[in-house]
């Protein structure tokens, strides 16, 4: 089976016959302006032409930051271009899982997580596949619209599960976890923090508890525990800014 090296055929809406995601051309998961920026970029034309799932690894291993579009001219990041390429290729599930599960390259993992969130249609599967990576605390470099930010793999995964817009794309609607738990499609979440959370719960309300909470937050980078959980960990103003800008 062969697919076209260039995305032009896939982008031309009239005769699209490839695999569908949510009933539509997978490339339409990105908005039109973003799609246009990607296709006109030099990185796409030079480096993303003729890639297949295997040669994409060459490019993905060289990624050094994540991000959407940046600058006045809305230039796309290589991360975004590769995600677009993945949408064009629509590789098999096992290949994506391979990308996700490998330990060595965190940006490849981020790319796979992004693809999973965009492309997989069963919400329960998305949660189940991505939640283990809320324990991965490695640092990621993120390119925001006007500069750089520091984030972590688990923050990124959490953003994917919680936010509605990230990396210049509007994420498809995902049912909240509580909803799926009520429907018995998912088990209630067991956090990797485990007993530490219990302890924090117990100290809630004491003034000492505040100090302990802040310390706990400094020690663990994992934020957020799914939806609806009483927010034990307080948000700093700083971290909000870090996550700003898509």
């Amino acid at each position: 089976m062969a697919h076209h090296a260039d995305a032009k055929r896939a982008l031309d809406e009239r005769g699209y016959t490839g695999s569908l995601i949510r009933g539509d051309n997978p490339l339409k998961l990105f908005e039109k302006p973003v799609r246009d920026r990607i296709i006109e970029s030099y990185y796409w034309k030079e480096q993303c032409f003729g890639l297949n799932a295997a040669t994409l690894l060459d490019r993905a291993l060289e990624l050094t930051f994540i991000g959407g579009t940046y600058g006045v001219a809305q230039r796309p990041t290589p991360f975004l271009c590769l995600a677009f390429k993945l949408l064009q290729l629509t590789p098999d599930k096992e290949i994506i899982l391979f990308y996700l599960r490998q330990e060595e390259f965190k940006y490849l993992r981020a790319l796979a997580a992004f693809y999973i969130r965009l492309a997989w249609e069963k919400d329960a599967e998305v949660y189940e596949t991505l939640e283990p990576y809320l324990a991965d605390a490695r640092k990621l470099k993120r390119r925001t619209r006007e500069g750089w930010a520091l984030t972590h793999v688990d923050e990124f995964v959490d953003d994917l599960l919680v936010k509605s817009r990230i990396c210049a794309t509007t994420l498809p609607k995902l049912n909240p976890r509580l909803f799926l738990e009520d429907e018995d499609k998912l088990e209630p979440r067991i956090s990797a923090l485990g007993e530490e959370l219990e302890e924090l719960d117990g100290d809630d309300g004491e003034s000492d508890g505040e100090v302990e909470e802040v310390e706990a937050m400094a020690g663990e980078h994992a934020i957020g525990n799914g939806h609806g959980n009483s927010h034990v960990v307080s948000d700093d103003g700083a971290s909000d800014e870090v996550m700003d800008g898509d």
Partner: protein
Amino acid sequence: MSDRKPDAYGSSAPKTTDTSHRRTWDRTAYAEKAASREAQIKEEGKARYEASLKGQKYHAPHHKSSILNDNEHKFEETHDTSARQARLNVADQVGKTQVIISGAGQGKRGKSAGFYCEVCDLTYKDNLQFVEHLNSRQHLVASGESGEVRRAGLEEVKARFAYLVANRKEAKAREVVDLGERIEVAREVEEREREEKRRRRNEKRRKTEGGVGVVEVKVEGDGVIC
């Protein structure tokens, strides 16, 4: 007509006639050419018909390949497109001056200032257009690529991954860590750069020859788009 029976006075020099300054054509050679061309058209027609019966498209062998194939009309297998192995080398000509024959290029055709594609005989003013051309249908057909990429399975992905990881490890191992060696290496690099600069300075100082066809290639912004 060049062989003449000796005339009455015994000379066999070619007689000049009214039309002897006019051009003559070798009819037999041209008749052969016409016959072979018609045969080729017929063959191609047959190949197209067969391909359409099978539901495929017949790819005509491009003219460059037929030159290489001893002028035989083989149906050449087009090979799959794959990704570029290395970055396109667009920046190494920056700042250099080239002598170009002034009449060589008409618009895009022919070699003139800029990025030149040999396969299609086209020149582009900047690297973005150049790379677009390299991805275009026109160029792919001319270089015998089908424009379709083979889909990779899980095994291939894993193999590629292992290969890349091994490459990285190797590159890392080769990296020189010892401080003394690093100083050596840095010194050598510096020497080399100084030589380069000296050589370039000497070239500039040397008088350039004036004359026909000297085109100084100095594009604003160097025509390189990233």
